[in-house]
């Protein structure tokens, strides 16, 4: 028998490759019990790799009947196995939560015996937390592909978010490393849950009291760099899933080599593609919040994101015809397209220019990355526009000014530009 400490070590270690840590979007208000997930999520601490720790992220068990080559818990991997009981997970969650260590629980599992057997265990944990402990903190549950509709629906009543991971961005890639798996088995639970969410939203229009059903929506994750997909393929899949399943988030997780035996995968010791991962998140952001279409950023001519500069800058350098943009006249939608200006500072600019035309020094105070933005905009006192310098020269100048910027950023940060 392993000690409990050892068990926690194994089952936290095996769960950490799921990068999602979001704990926002919950709708549970506390009515006298414990916990509240109605506010936006909080990072209670950060690991040494700089990732947000918001949820207790553990596996129910790391036993698994499958053998996905990219996964530490695959059955052929020689690692120590362990499993929590339902009661243990509940107790640990409550005790961490009451000490304000966490926002809630992120529970997932290797597949033990069968999909339904595993899913039932997960369901029991979340049911106990909500009904017996009166816990209103955040719960993210990884649904088990192949689990019955009834179990998914019951679990959906207790959790805030559900996710099912695509793991590999394309079906062909998946076949290479996990021949027992397919994307269809991911689409099925996503569809069931999506339809239930829709039904709950419909009912809400007519009925007063509709039970919450996965109020924070669904998400998925893709492993990046384990298989040979290009960035265009990855983002095409992401866009498709955002659209088909109303996903709240797609996560991109740079593959960390953990398999010596499989020659199809990057070898142990290879550094994970962190910069690429960050570029994918930036692209994801551009598509969702900056009004870009996928085609503008990635297309058959540009199938890969540039690593040394961010995708917005890269787009701008390829499209000099739109620049420079006049800060004092342009629409919000154009201002956010200027490299170095994010949605926050764009809103401030719109706000501030009501009081008079903005000058260079005022812009610098509004929190924009001026050293980058200056090539792409004009303001009140810009000396007669020098015209758009050659894109190559701008790129060089920006990189020289800030050579390491790419490396200290991380996907967990929201200020991506």
């Amino acid at each position, binding site marked *: 028998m392993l000690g*409990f*400490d050892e068990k*926690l*070590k194994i089952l*936290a*270690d095996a*769960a*950490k*490759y799921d990068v999602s840590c979001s704990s926002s979007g919950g709708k549970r*208000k*506390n009515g*006298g*019990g*414990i*916990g*509240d997930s109605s*506010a936006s999520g*909080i*990072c*209670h*601490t*950060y*690991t*040494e*790799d*700089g*990732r*947000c*720790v918001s949820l*207790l*992220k*553990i596996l129910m068990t790391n036993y698994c009947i499958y053998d996905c080559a990219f996964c530490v818990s695959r059955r052929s991997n020689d690692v120590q196995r362990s499993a929590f009981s339902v009661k243990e997970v509940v107790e*640990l969650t409550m*005790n*961490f939560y*009451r*000490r*304000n*260590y966490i926002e809630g629980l992120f529970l997932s599992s290797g597949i033990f015996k069968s999909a339904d057997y595993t899913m039932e265990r997960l369901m029991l944990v979340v049911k106990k937390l909500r009904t017996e402990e*009166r816990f209103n903190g955040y719960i993210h549950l990884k649904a088990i592909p192949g689990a019955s509709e009834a179990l998914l629906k019951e679990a959906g009543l207790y959790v805030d978010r559900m996710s099912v991971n695509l793991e590999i961005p394309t079906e062909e890639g998946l076949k290479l490393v996990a021949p027992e798996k397919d994307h269809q088995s991911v689409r099925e639970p996503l569809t069931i849950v999506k339809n239930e969410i829709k039904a709950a939203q419909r009912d809400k229009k007519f009925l007063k009291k509709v039970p919450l059903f996965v109020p924070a929506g669904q998400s998925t994750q893709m492993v990046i760099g384990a298989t040979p997909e290009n960035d265009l393929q990855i983002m095409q899949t992401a866009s498709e899933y955002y659209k088909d399943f109303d996903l709240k988030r797609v996560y991109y997780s*740079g593959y*960390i080599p953990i398999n010596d035996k499989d020659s199809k995968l990057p070898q142990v010791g290879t*550094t*994970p593609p*962190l910069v690429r991962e960050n570029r994918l998140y930036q692209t994801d952001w551009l598509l969702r919040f900056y009004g870009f279409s996928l085609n503008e950023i990635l297309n058959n001519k540009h199938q890969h994101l540039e690593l040394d500069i961010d995708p917005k800058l890269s787009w701008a350098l390829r499209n000099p015809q739109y620049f420079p943009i006049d800060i004092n006249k342009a629409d919000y939608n154009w201002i956010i397209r200027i490299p170095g200006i994010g949605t926050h500072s764009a809103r*401030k600019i719109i*706000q*501030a220019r*009501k*009081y*008079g035309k*903005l000058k260079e020094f*005022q812009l610098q*105070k*509004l929190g924009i990355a001026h050293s980058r933005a200056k090539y792409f905009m004009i303001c009140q006192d810009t000396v007669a526009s020098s015209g758009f310098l050659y894109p190559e020269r701008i790129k060089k100048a920006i990189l020289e000014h800030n050579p390491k910027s790419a490396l*200290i950023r*991380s996907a967990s940060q929201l200020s991506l530009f």
Partner: protein
Amino acid sequence: MHYIFDGSFSGFLCCVFEAFERKEFNAIPIKDKIPETDLFSKHRMIITDDTKWNRIFVGMEKIIGKKGIQTFYHNFLADTPQAWQNGFRLIVKLFKTGSIDMGNYGNTEMLMMHQTIKKVSRERHRMKAFVRFVKSSENLYTALIEPDFNVLPLVTNFFKNRFADQHWLIYDLRRNYGYHYDGHAVQEVSRSNDERISDPYSFEVELDPRELEFQHLWITYFKSTNIESRKNIKLHLKHVPRRYWNYLVEKKGT
């Protein structure tokens, strides 16, 4: 001219009242003691008076609404002479001109106020995140903090809603006061000066028998969830600055 007030927001508003009474618009509001360098400069003791601060409050509300007052309140909680002086000047201006645009970032004083409340808000957010409760044998959950700004009043509601069924105490060591929640209501508490607590993990309470076990499990979890090959200490430090480490179970003593 220094105006010495009691350190409360109402006292601060009374400074504005007096400034108009006496036409001393360049007054500098400070708390309690006269700065030593200024022993010989002029100063005036401002007594907090309910009618006085109420008049200022109502007057402000007419012009800038509740939300505007809240902005000034948050600026006040920054708890620094500069922020106070800047806020004071802006209120004086507000009454002199009868209007003020709270969104005018082009104005230096207004911009400074917004920058200050942004810092206050960041600290407030950090307190929600970094407070760590220690459970004692009487089922009281205690947390000791030392925030840069006086943000405790801004987070009590958050903790009250979240931990509605547990008793807790959050204590600001730097300002020597805290809030206690007994399952029904939140109350301000403070100790006398000679009773100061210094180390958050060695204050005198009897711990719950399983407290140390859960602290240990949390540390285990914190280490196990880290991915070594992604190590990025610079980013780590940006998010968890060293000055908070002493209060974080998982960072203490590392």
